[in-house]
């Protein structure tokens, strides 16, 4: 089946071997067997059968004709068979060549149908069933254009994930890039198919390079704390600019930082910084608690000091007022009859005072120094007290 063989490489057309198409330059070789009823692997048995049947019927026809005309029956039969085979081959060759199945193709909803005529870009068709000129005139390529592709970098590769920062620290980064064919401009699909070899590897290399460029211009601590989204955004921008420069027809949808942390061997020291922040906070809280207990205590004490002082003031005033009132009362009495009152007060007081003391009446005119047994006096009195 020469055509089947040719389908694979396009040999006679001079392009064999150099077709570096990684996207299935020649879809017939790849796809024929799977979803095209007339194509590829199913053909040989069908054709054999067909040939056998045609051979039979044609042989009957020609052979019968020859027989009727009467000529050299056997020889004519043999030549007729050879011819028949040739004719059949040509008819079948033409049939395979222009087999309707080769002219009809369907484009899946996620695909675009890019039709090439002898390898030259002809048109792009939307999803659905379409007709083209049969192979080998036109071929179709069906790249998946709406699918979002994901590349993950550094997830479990130390060499990929460790990057140097501007302040010459090393940060451990794993990220994910989501990309798809750039449909933002008309020729995006064309660029994607024809401009760059191995788009996925290209995206990967550009992603790693861009991330390292961005990380190399940032300091470690922001990268692992506050500037994560900025790092992703800048990486996305650098990637997009680079790929646009390549006319790669690729759109970077998103760069997600999955991990941005200190490397494993120093992560304890970094965690200790967090712990230190907590320690500091705890010390502050303890101090605040202390403040909250000391100041109310002082206020309470202050209140008690003030209250005591107030009590003193009020009691002193009250006492003075009482004594003053008493004096005034007595004085008022006294002014009624000063002489008598004065004498009475004197005598009453003296009576009281002298009545309870050890009274010694001594006449100074005696001249001699009297002997006063002062130490005895107290004792007598105590004994007298005890006898009572």
């Amino acid at each position, binding site marked *: 089946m020469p055509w089947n063989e040719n389908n694979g490489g396009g040999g006679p057309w001079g392009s064999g071997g150099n077709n570096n198409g990684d996207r299935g330059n020649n879809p017939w070789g790849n796809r024929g067997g799977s979803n095209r009823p007339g194509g590829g692997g199913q053909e040989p048995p069908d054709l054999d059968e067909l040939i056998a049947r045609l051979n039979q019927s044609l042989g009957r026809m020609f052979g019968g004709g020859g027989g009727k005309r009467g000529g050299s029956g056997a020889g004519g039969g043999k030549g007729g068979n050879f011819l028949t085979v040739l004719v059949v081959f040509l008819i079948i060759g033409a049939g395979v060549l222009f087999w309707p199945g080769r002219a009809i193709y369907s484009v899946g909803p996620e695909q675009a149908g890019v039709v090439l005529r002898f390898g030259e870009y002809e048109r792009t068709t939307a999803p659905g069933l379409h007709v083209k000129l049969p192979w080998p005139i036109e071929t179709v390529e069906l790249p998946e254009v709406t699918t979002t592709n994901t590349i993950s970098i550094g997830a479990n590769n130390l060499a990929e994930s460790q*990057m140097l920062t501007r302040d010459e620290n090393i940060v451990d980064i794993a990220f994910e890039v989501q990309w798809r064919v750039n449909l933002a401009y008309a020729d995006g699909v064309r660029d994607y198919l024809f401009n760059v070899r191995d788009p996925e590897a290209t995206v990967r290399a550009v992603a790693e390079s861009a991330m*390292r460029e961005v990380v190399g211009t940032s300091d470690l601590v922001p990268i692992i704390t506050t500037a994560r989204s900025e790092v992703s955004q800048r990486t996305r921008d650098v990637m997009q600019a680079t790929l646009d420069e390549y006319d790669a027809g690729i759109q970077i949808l998103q760069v997600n930082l999955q991990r941005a942390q200190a490397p494993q061997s120093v992560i304890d020291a970094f965690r200790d910084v967090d712990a230190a922040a907590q320690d500091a906070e705890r010390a502050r809280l303890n*101090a605040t608690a202390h403040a909250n207990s000391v100041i109310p*205590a002082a206020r309470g004490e202050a209140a008690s000091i003030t209250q005591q002082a107030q009590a003193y003031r009020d009691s002193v005033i009250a006492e003075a007022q009482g004594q003053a009132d008493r004096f005034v009362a007595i004085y008022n009495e006294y002014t009624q009859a000063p002489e008598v009152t004065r004498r009475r*007060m004197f005598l009453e007081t003296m009576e009281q005072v002298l009545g309870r003391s050890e009274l010694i009446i001594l006449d100074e005119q005696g001249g001699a120094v009297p002997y006063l047994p002062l130490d005895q006096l107290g004792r007598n009195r105590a004994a007298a007290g005890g006898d009572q």
Partner: protein
Amino acid sequence: MSRIVTIFGFVLLIAAVIGLSMSVFTVNEREQALVLRFGEPVGAVNENGDEAGLHFKVPFVDSVVMFDRRNLEFDMDPEEIQAANQERLVVDAFLRYRIVNPLRFYQTVRNENGARARLGSIMDDSLRGVIGSIASQDVISGQRSALMDRVQAAVDAQVATQDLGIDVIDVRILRADLPQQIAERVFQRMRSEREQEAARIRAEGEQVAREIRAAADRDATIIRAEARAEGERLRGEGDARRNAIYAEAYNRDAEFFSFYRSLDAYRLAVREGTPIVIPPDSEFFRYFRNQDGGE
């Protein structure tokens, strides 16, 4: 006879088909072709990307060599390169190029394998030249894109000198890292930096805590002192008031006050059993000797 003619006709037809197939070739959008006549280049097809499609050649005489015309990657192996400050860096770079002149390309490097070998030495040379002239921290940090431009310029110059039929689209430094033993040093430094940071944060926390405590203690002392001051003031007020009250009352008759107060004082000062020596001619005993009270 007619059968022989028919057979001949078929043979002719087949020969024609084969001949036709040998005299045409297709060039895909991705490709460009070089037509060689007995090995001698006679023409290039689709160098500029506008000639894809069906093309003719002379069968048996012309042969066709295909080249990619897409943006191709050359990824070099990581290399240790010494920067201007004698520090070594592991540099991994890649280069994007396109074959723009298939004839020159074919003549100089023959195919992509040849190109890779040539580009490898050019890249190596350019990287060493450029990185060797700048300090390692500039390689790592902010200058990277300027650095890549310089490497690309160096590569461009060499590619142009050698006339490889190649257009260098981009040179990108993938990694510019420290070798493993130096990375270990970086880790050490990072660790000690973090330890210092942790110590600083703890010390600052301690400082803040002490400040809060001290402020609280100060406030407490002030509150107490103010309370004591207020207390003294209140006591003073009380004492002043008392004096005023006494003065107001006793000033009515100062002489009587001293009499009255002295009596009070005697009563309080002389306790029970206090011995008192008293002459019989005292005021108290005025009538003790004489009922007239006279001397």
